[in-house]
């Protein structure tokens, strides 16, 4: 299934291709976006397609056409649940789920006007991990709900209490010993990230 990576050398002066090239370069692995035949298997397999602005296939058509703004504003990558159905079924071997991650990070970097609280959730999670080295659900949940979904908090309270009583959630964060080491690593990584 995962065979020889395809190295494409797009013309850097073509303004449309710059977006496609950018997305390809920022994607882990080789994205193979240029191989898409628009068959629609990804959109057909996606469990959350009904809630997306654009199906995955449409998004790729937009990327190839160079519609940067619309693509980054789309809520599609944020509704993607990373179930990898599309990746496994794509007849052309496009790294669909990974392109979704790329679009997420590009949307955050471009401060795109996405109609979803997902970017913020991701950022909050990242803040927790960077602070402690481990995820801290209690902190994540409280901060996120207080910011975005205050109304939901009372409804979630029984579940929250249930989690606490069943010892499935801790009110205190755990910190790793090598947190400084982690900071150094992440700091350098952010420098390298263009």
């Amino acid at each position, binding site marked *: 299934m995962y065979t020889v990576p395809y190295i494409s050398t797009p013309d850097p002066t073509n303004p449309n291709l710059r977006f496609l090239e950018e997305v390809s370069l920022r994607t882990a692995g080789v994205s193979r976006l240029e191989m898409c035949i628009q068959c*629609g298997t990804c959109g*057909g*397999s996606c469990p959350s397609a009904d809630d997306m602005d654009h199906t995955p296939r449409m998004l790729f058509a937009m990327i190839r056409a160079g519609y940067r703004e619309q693509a980054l504003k789309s809520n599609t990558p944020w509704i993607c649940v990373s179930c990898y159905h599309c990746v496994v079924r794509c007849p052309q*071997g496009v790294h669909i789920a990974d392109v979704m991650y790329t679009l997420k990070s590009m949307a955050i970097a471009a401060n795109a006007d996405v109609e979803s609280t997902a970017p913020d959730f991701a950022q909050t999670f990242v803040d927790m991990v960077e602070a402690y080295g481990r995820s801290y659900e209690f902190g994540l949940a409280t901060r996120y709900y207080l910011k975005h979904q205050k109304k939901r908090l009372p409804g979630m309270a029984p579940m929250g209490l249930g989690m606490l009583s069943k010892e499935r959630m801790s009110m205190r964060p755990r910190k790793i010993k090598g947190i400084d080491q982690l900071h150094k690593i992440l700091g350098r990584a952010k420098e390298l990230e263009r």
Partner: protein
Amino acid sequence: MSQPIHLFDSDDPQERIGVYVCHCGTNIAGIVDVEEVRDWAGQRLKDRGVVVSRDYKFMCSSLGQEMIEKDIKDLGLTRVVVAACSPHLHEQTFRTAAQRGGLNPYLTELVSIREQVSWVHTDKNAATDKAKAVVSGGVERVIKNQPLEPLHVPINEATLVVGGGIAGIQAALEIADGGYPVFMVEREPSIGGHMAQFDKTFPTLDCAACILTPRMVSVGTHPHINLFTWSEVESVSGYVGNFTVTIRKKARFVNEELCTGCGICQEKCPKKIIDEIYEAGLGYRKAVYTPFPQAVPKYPVIDKPNCTYFLKGTCKACEKFCPTNAIDFNQKDELITIQVGNIILATGYDLFDPRRIPHYGYGRLANVYTSLEFERLSNAAGPTNGEIVLRDGKTKPKSVGVIHCVGSRDRNYNNYCSAICCMQSLKFAHLVHERTGATVYNFYIDIRTPAKAYDEFYQRVLEEGTLFVRGRVAEVTDAARKPEEEGRLIIQVEDTLAGKQRRIPVDMVILSAGLEPRKDAKATAHTFGISCSADGWFIEKHPKLDPVSTMTEGIFIAGCVTGPKDIPATVSQGAAAAARVMGRIQQKEILLEPVRASVNPDQCSGCRICNNLCPFNAITFIEDRMVTEINPALCQGCGTCVAACPAGAISGTGFSNEQILRQIDGLLMLNLEYMSEAAELVPA
């Protein structure tokens, strides 16, 4: 600098060599300074025997060729070197020209200064120097060329056709009608192949059996065709014009002399088995059976692994009831050896197994069918007498989904397009409409209808109201999300033209599965000594210009054995192969290229390293003399054994060690008197 040992014996007879440098328009002359090469060859290589050196715009033209002929006659040339394009293209041209001039054709050499110089370099100086080196190499080699005569091989008139499908049938009939004997070998009890399973054929909607069976009968009754069914080719030896083939005629357990084909044995047989082959697993047959009523030949066979008598020693109902005592449980397999001149392979295809795609539900979900299963369903002689029904055998579907590209155009399964599935899917849509009035959906990525009357058929199916959804089906499932989906098959797909994911409930799903090579294609290719690609399709000599020959002389291929194709193309190929064969037969003998390997028995140590290397099965080991011998008719001159022999005992006529080493010396310009100059001229 020490002199290499093999350099330039002084007792080399002085040949008279003509050098001809071609411009090829600007193809060569645009990069290589042709005149300079001509002059250089004429002057510097004079001592090596070059008596004339010319250039011309197009050496392959009649005028160019006439130049060579004239020089041979007038100047008494004994060798010719042409520096032009690749030998693949015009080696034969210049050899024939030389022959017309009175010179043995094998005393010419065509060296490439186009594909190997002007087409791959841009530096004109370096290219010209390289061209000089190439010409020099050619001159040195040609000195060592020997006059050779092509091999005359007589052609046996008989032909073997392997495979009794429409391709084989077409080929056999053409040859037999031409008056030559044909042996046809078919693995199943009857000929007919896949076409016999179909209901209607696109785009004419002819009944497949109606157009096929007359041909089958012709084959069965033709005076020139020897039909072996329930048989397989066990081994092949020999070479073009003289193949010796051993056929294993499996025991039918039915005496063909006595059997009248009345069918009583089949009626009385108590053992019912699922027919995986002809009925595609959808219907039953008995342990003694003919696959279908119009079978040719009409004699049934007993399926030994499933026969009660062979398993337990009881029953024998068929024997009891046979009115002519034709059942013979003691029959044995027969090995029959025949001699043929040419072989046509037409063994057909297998269907892609959709069980490999679990999300389409085939095998788990009852009402998902493959294309071949549906053909049997809609065939009036099939297990449901032509009623298109669900797996329960009774209910007519109210809506049907036809899925294109199952297992094709997919890196995860088969990367190629199976050519016939779009038309086949349209045909299914039409048949379902006609027979059941159900709503039909076709799910496609592209609609491929290239040939005659094909797109018109698409128009017709559109007019009938088939609903086309452009989207590759993601899933076929029975997990309902809404009440209206309960109990039905749900096709989940993105309707790419509407831009939305849709879940379409249907009663029945037909998978247009792709075509694959036969499971044992590689073994077959090996038996016959032909090449087969990695996925199992047989390889033709040239994909554009020679689609029915193989690299092995005397063996031809026709039909789906080389790749998916529809019936018109298959029939064309069957006829084409037959024409090629008949052309050969009528010549009574063929001339084979004498460029072959041969073993020097004095040098052969009997180590046998070369024995298993030959891709053309041309090497045999002579036990009593403990030496290896090469059959010149089978040998294709590939050179593998020459390279492998540790004693250097194998040499090729036309590519002897001497010739090659001399050519290398020539390329390195070691032949020139002034070594220092040679060092400068050697391209960096």
